[in-house]
C-alpha cells in the first residue's frame, strides 16, 4: 500500500519502501548512531553524515531538497537499521514513553527564560 505522503515519483528515492511503523515528528531531532555508510544509498549516506550533528527531519528535507514524506521514510529505515537515533524524548507518537517536552515544566521554564533573554 502506498504511503499517502509519498507521491509516485519518490518511490525510487526511498528504495521502494512504502510502509513505515515510525513516523518521526518533522521537528524532532535525529542523530547518527552508526556512521558506517558502506551499504547505504547516496541519499542515506548524506543523511547519516549530516546527522553527525542533531537535526530535525524538516530541516534535513529542506537542506537536501527532499520532500518531507520521503525524508520521513528514509529516516524510518535508517532508524530500523540502527544508523540513526531519535533524541527528542516526546515528539515521536508511536514510541512516546515519557512526558512530552511541551508538558515538561523544567523545559518550559528554560524555554521561557531563554526567550526573555533574547528580547533584552
Amino acid at each position, binding site marked *: 500500500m502506498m504511503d499517502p505522503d509519498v507521491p509516485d515519483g519518490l518511490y525510487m528515492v526511498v528504495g521502494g519502501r512504502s510502509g513505515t511503523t515510525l513516523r518521526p515528528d*518533522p521537528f*524532532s*531531532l535525529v542523530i547518527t548512531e552508526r556512521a558506517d555508510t558502506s551499504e547505504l544509498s547516496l541519499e542515506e549516506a*548524506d543523511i547519516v553524515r549530516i546527522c553527525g*550533528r542533531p537535526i530535525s527531519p524538516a*530541516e534535513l528535507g529542506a537542506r537536501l531538497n527532499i520532500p*518531507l514524506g520521503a525524508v520521513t521514510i528514509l529516516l524510518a529505515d535508517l532508524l530500523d537499521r540502527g544508523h540513526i537515533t531519535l533524541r527528542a524524548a516526546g515528539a515521536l507518537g508511536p514510541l512516546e514513553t515519557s512526558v512530552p517536552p511541551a508538558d515538561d515544566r523544567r523545559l518550559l521554564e528554560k524555554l521561557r527564560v531563554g526567550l526573555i533573554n533574547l528580547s533584552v
Partner: protein
Amino acid sequence: MSVSSTSLYEPLAPSTTVSLKILVTGGFGVGKTTLVSSISEITPLTTEAEMTQAGAGVDEGLELRPDKTTTTVAFDFGRISIDEEIVLYLFGAPGQERFHALWERLCQGAVGAVVLVDTRDVESSFAALDRVERAGLPHLVAHNPFGDEDRRWSLEEIRTSLDLDPGTPLLRCDARDPAQVGTALAELVLHRQHMLEGTTVR
C-alpha cells in the same frame, strides 16, 4: 547530492537534546513568514509536504502544485537555539481547512500557537483562531500593526471584534521586531505553563 562539509548546514550544537516547536498561524499576508524570519538564527527554510487532498490557491509562504494525485504544500520554518540543551523550531502554517492532515501532524506536541491578526482583515483571522481553539492548542493572539491607522485600534476593540475568550492572551507585536517577537513567544510559553498548573490565566 554529495556533502563535503556539515558546516554548510548550520548545524545545531552537539549537546542539543530537546526540540520544542511553536506554530505561527493567521490569515493571508498577516506576517507569519516575517515573524519567523525576524527571530530565527538561520535564514528560514522551506520544506515540502505532500497532501492527498486537492486544493488551489496561493498563500504567503505557501505554494500549491496540483498534480494527478497529490498537492504539494511548502511551509516555512526557522529555529532558535535556546541554550546548550534546547532548540525551538518556529513554523508557519496557514489556517485553511483543506490542509487539515498536515496541520494536525505539525501541531501534535507543539508548545502552542501564535495567531497573528491584522485589523485590515479581521475576518481572515477567524479560520486560524477557530482551528487552534478546536485543536485545544494553547495560543495567544498577536496584533501585527500595519501603519498608524492600524495602531488606532485598541486591544480591547480587537478582543471584542474577534470575540476572544477572556483567558486568551492578546498583545501587540510588530512581527519585524525580534524583541517584540521574543516577548510574545515568552508570553505564550507562560500561558502554557499556567494551563499546565490549571490556574485561571488573566
